[in-house]
Structures are given as C-alpha cells and as structure tokens.
C-alpha cells in the first residue's frame, strides 16, 4: 500500500518528473516500448501503471459483433466511429451462418457497417487475425483489438493484439483508445535445437507443459532461443496463439529472422526488467499432446498411443496455415485415412485455401479422404463445423479442449503431423520419422 501511495504521489508531482527521467535510462521490454509509442509522451509504462492506449485498429467479429453494435447505439446513438478506415468487421465463426440467430447478428453488423462506412471481411474471408496479417491491416509495432481472445496471435509479427469484450470494443470504435494496465514481462528462453523433424506445435506444447494454464497469468511473454529463430510465420502464430492458454496477455517470439521483420525501435533493451526468467531445454523435444480436460494437461504422445479416435480436426487460428496442411499432405499422399475416422480440414483464410488449391495440397487431402471446408474458425464455435458427440474421441490441432468446449466428446490437442499419422492409423500414433 505504501509503495502504491508513493507511486501515486510520484505520478502527480515533481517526483513524477524525476521518476520519468530515471526510467528514461532504464531498459524496457517490448510491451513497454510498444505501449510507450501508443500513449501520451512521457507517460510512465512500468508494470501496473494504467495508461490510455491508442489503438491503431479496432475490430469485431460475428461473435460479439452484434453486441458491439447494440452497445454503441445505446451509448453513442448515430454518431460516427472515430475512424472508419481503421475499423473493421471480420466474420469468421459461424460462416456462412448455419442458423437464423447468427444470420441476423451478421446482418445487423453489415447494415450498421454500411451506415458507418466500415469495411466488412465477410463470411468468405477467414479468421480475422490471419486476414489482418495477410491483408496488411496490421503491421509490426501496431496495436489491434477485437472480440477474439486469440488476437494476441499478432504477437507473432511483433504487434500488440488483444481480445476484449463488446463494451470495450464499442468504446474503442468510438474513441480509438482504451485503458490498459501495463503487464509485467516474463522471459522464456528455449535452449538447444530439437532433432528434426519437429513442429512449432510440439514446441508450444512443451512451453504449456512447463507454464501450465496460469503460468503467464496477466503477463507479456518474450520468447528467445535458436528454436524461436527457426520458426516461420506460421510457427510463430502457433506459439503466440497459445499464450492465451498459458494465461498470458501476449507473447512475442523475439526473432532476428522474422519476416516481416520486427520493428527495430521496439526490440527489448538488454537491461530490461523481467518479472521472471524461465529456461527450458528443448533439445530432447518429442511429439506432445494435450489430453482432456485442459490445454495444459500435456503428455508425450507415446503415453496415449493406441487410443482409438473417431474424428480428426485440422485447422483453427493455431494451426490453420498452408504450411500445416502441406505437412499433412506430405504424410497422407497416396494413402487413405482409417475407414472409421471422420477428418475435417478448415483453412484459416481464403488465401490459404487458394494456396492449397493451386499447389495440389487440396487434391492430395481430398484423395486421402479428408473433408475440406471453406475458411474460418471451424470447431471452436458451435455453428461452423467440427463439434463432437458424446463418447467421441477427437484429435485436433485447435487450441482448447475444456469440457464441453468443442462438443460433448473428448478432445486431444496435438500437431498437424501427429494428427495426420493418427488419422491414417485410426488411433493416436507417434509420428513415424523417415530414416
């Protein structure tokens, strides 16, 4: 309490200026630098400080979108949003709508967007966070909010993305900003290189296993190490998306090789202050799987080998990239998935779908027996597709397996590679490694 009182005093008077001066010489983490660039000049950005954060892009999706419109109308009437050119709707969950309530909600958003001059990425576009990266709506160093709790995926390109509720987003549409508490940063250093072949998902599961469901609670995370440098954009997206399941605000893979490159002005200082540093040796990484009932219940795949599966889901904002499906195609080419297995693929975006189409990946997957749907979120929403029935066992590359989340069945979360080998075998299987 005393420290808090002193902080308040410091912020208010001459001491505040001294404190700012002192902090000007102290190293800053990535989130501190990013926030400092998006708030009043000189405002303190130490962990726990509350700042007004300028939001470069504000979005809503079909979940929460109609609620945003309702809140906006109730509080701001027919007045215009702060900046229509930086405000978007992205429909990605129930696409196209499979029931009337969602059709209604999407139409409410469409009509309101028209009156406001806001662009809608409609039911054919794909997952909002991925569309934002592909279409260049967000660049490294930007701030981006929406009604999607996995918007911290944008950490993969060194931008700040955050999911928020519909009141927050209505406020952001109108004002272009929101309040935010500067989170402490933790540093996760991954030592060593896993033996080939390995996947970003297994690396991510290894971090989840160590951190648990609340190991990063309320924190920003910076990831370091040679394995992080080796990740492509798809891999960084996989890692960044699961920071939500670690309880974190956002995770930044700090990579010198990233494309697009991280904003050099926002790279963390060598003497930045971290709440915690966690070292993890990943040189012995093996295929991992999150068993029910939660994403942090991570085990080696070999421990659950032989578990009969009824269905496979490949996609989601965590593993819905072209690279993920190309890896699956390589495994199943010329083969058929097990006769009793229903396997569904949902590309993240229309662009991913196009790549699958032109590269031949789509045909390979079709021939192997997969259902390939239009782009979107897939099984994370009751509505698009991919829900499980009671007693059904599913292996999925999605991001959550809480009880009842993806239906009444049991969901196991693993990499696309593990899921592909399991689809062929009809049971959970450790991927075969080519000699």
């Amino acid at each position: 309490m005393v420290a808090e009182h002193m902080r308040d005093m410091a912020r208010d008077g001459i001491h505040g200026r001294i404190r700012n001066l002192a902090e000007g010489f102290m190293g800053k983490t990535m989130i501190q630098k990013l926030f400092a660039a998006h708030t009043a000049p000189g405002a303190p950005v130490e962990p726990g400080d509350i700042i007004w954060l300028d939001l470069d892009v504000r979005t809503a999706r079909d979940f929460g979108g109609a609620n945003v419109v309702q809140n906006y109308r109730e509080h701001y009437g027919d007045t215009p949003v702060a900046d229509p050119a930086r405000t978007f709707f992205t429909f990605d969950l129930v696409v196209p709508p499979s029931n009337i309530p969602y059709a209604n909600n999407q139409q409410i958003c469409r009509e309101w967007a028209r009156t406001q001059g806001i662009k809608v990425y409609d039911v054919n576009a794909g997952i909002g966070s991925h569309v934002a990266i592909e279409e260049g709506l967000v660049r490294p160093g930007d701030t981006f909010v929406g009604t999607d709790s996995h918007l911290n995926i944008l950490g993969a390109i060194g931008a700040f993305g955050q999911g928020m509720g519909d009141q927050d987003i209505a406020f952001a549409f109108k004002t272009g900003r929101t309040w935010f508490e500067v989170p402490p940063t933790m540093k996760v250093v991954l030592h060593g290189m896993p033996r080939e072949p390995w996947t970003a998902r297994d690396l991510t599961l290894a971090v989840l296993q160590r951190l648990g469901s609340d190991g990063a609670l309320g924190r920003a995370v910076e990831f370091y190490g040679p394995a992080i440098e080796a990740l492509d954009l798809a891999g960084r997206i996989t890692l960044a998306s699961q920071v939500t399941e670690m309880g974190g605000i956002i995770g930044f893979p700090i990579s010198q090789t990233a494309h697009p490159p991280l904003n050099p002005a926002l790279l963390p200082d060598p003497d930045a202050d971290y709440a915690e540093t966690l070292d993890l040796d990943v040189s012995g990484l093996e295929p991992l799987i999150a068993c029910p009932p939660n994403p942090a219940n991570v085990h080696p795949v070999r421990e659950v080998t032989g578990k009969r599966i009824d269905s496979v889901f490949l996609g989601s904002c965590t593993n819905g990239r072209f690279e993920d499906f190309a890896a699956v195609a390589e495994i199943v080419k010329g083969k058929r998935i097990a006769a009793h297995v229903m396997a569904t693929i949902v590309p993240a975006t229309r662009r991913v779908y196009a790549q699958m189409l032109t590269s031949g990946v789509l045909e390979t997957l079709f021939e192997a027996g997969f259902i390939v749907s239009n782009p979107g979120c897939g099984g994370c929403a009751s509505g698009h597709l991919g829900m499980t029935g009671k007693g059904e066992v599913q292996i999925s590359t999605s991001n959550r397996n809480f009880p009842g989340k993806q239906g009444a069945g049991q969901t196991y979360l693993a990499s696309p590679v593990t899921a592909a080998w399991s689809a062929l075998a009809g049971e959970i299987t450790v991927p075969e490694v080519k000699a």
Partner: protein
Amino acid sequence: MKATQITGRLWVLRDAEGTLYNDIDTDMIFHNRYLHITALAQMGQYTLDNLKGWEDFARRAQAGDLIMAGRNFGSGSSRQQAVDCFRALGIAAIIAESFGAIYKRNAINSGLPLIAFPELSICGVRFQSGDTLTVNFVTGEVLRNGAEPFQAQPFSKVQLAIYEAGNLFEYGKTAER
C-alpha cells in the same frame, strides 16, 4: 455513490469431491452455443450450465449473492456474456484466487465487482456455500459470518473509478487523458 461494501450469501464453486474449482473458463460460465444472445435479460438463465455440478445455478441464485472460486476464473474467450450473465442474475461480486486477464477487464468495464483473494487456498479456512460474507472493495477486507476477518486485494484505482462511474462508457466521458 455506489456501495463500496456489500454483504451477501456465498456460493463456493467446488467439484463433486469438494475441491475448489480452478480454471473455470468462459465456456463453462456461458457456453458458446448461446453466443448469439445480445439481450442481458436472456443471459442469466444459462449461467454456469456447462460447469459440472452447477448446471442449475441460475435457478438457485438470488440477486445479491456472492460467488467464490479458485485460480484463473474466467480464463478463455473474450465473450462479454460470461460477465453479463452474472449481472443479469444480480450477483453482487465474484471472489477468486485470481482471474483471467480479459475476464477481469470485461468485469471492471461493466461494473461487476471482482475481488482477487490470492491467499484463498492457503488461508486455512474452508469457506462454505451459505456463508455470509461482507466484502469491502476499498480496503479488500472480507468478513466471514460477521466474525472472521480476511485480507483480499482492494479494488485497483481504475477499477474503483469505473465502478463508481457505473461502467466504461460513463467513465470515458469523465476521464481526462
């Protein structure tokens, strides 16, 4: 001014074995099959209906009741309905060892009192459903059955300001940059 101290009947969210639930996620609080709902009045009835043993909570709860849970309450999605369903039922406050970050924001922004009680599982006391709790938002004091005092975290400065303004929208009208 809104009340900064409240007294109410407590519900302690435990599983069948009597263990305090941790990691109650937003799909357990307000399942994604109801996410098309936009009217607050329709949200209350589905509260906690995907949390084992608590499916009938909406029928048992009364306005003014308090809820207690373990770590990371409200983890998962950003859906506002997972906060609004409690507001619809008139739940006066949620006390937990810790909260999911987005959930915390959503509750603060809509004026639903959240009390972080970091020492809940180590304070050695078994809170029971039916206990009467008095909670002071400014001091963080929690009083059990009028006799046993505990120290939880007080509201943060911004939490108190938004709570007193009513919600984020009202707060935004008065807040200076």
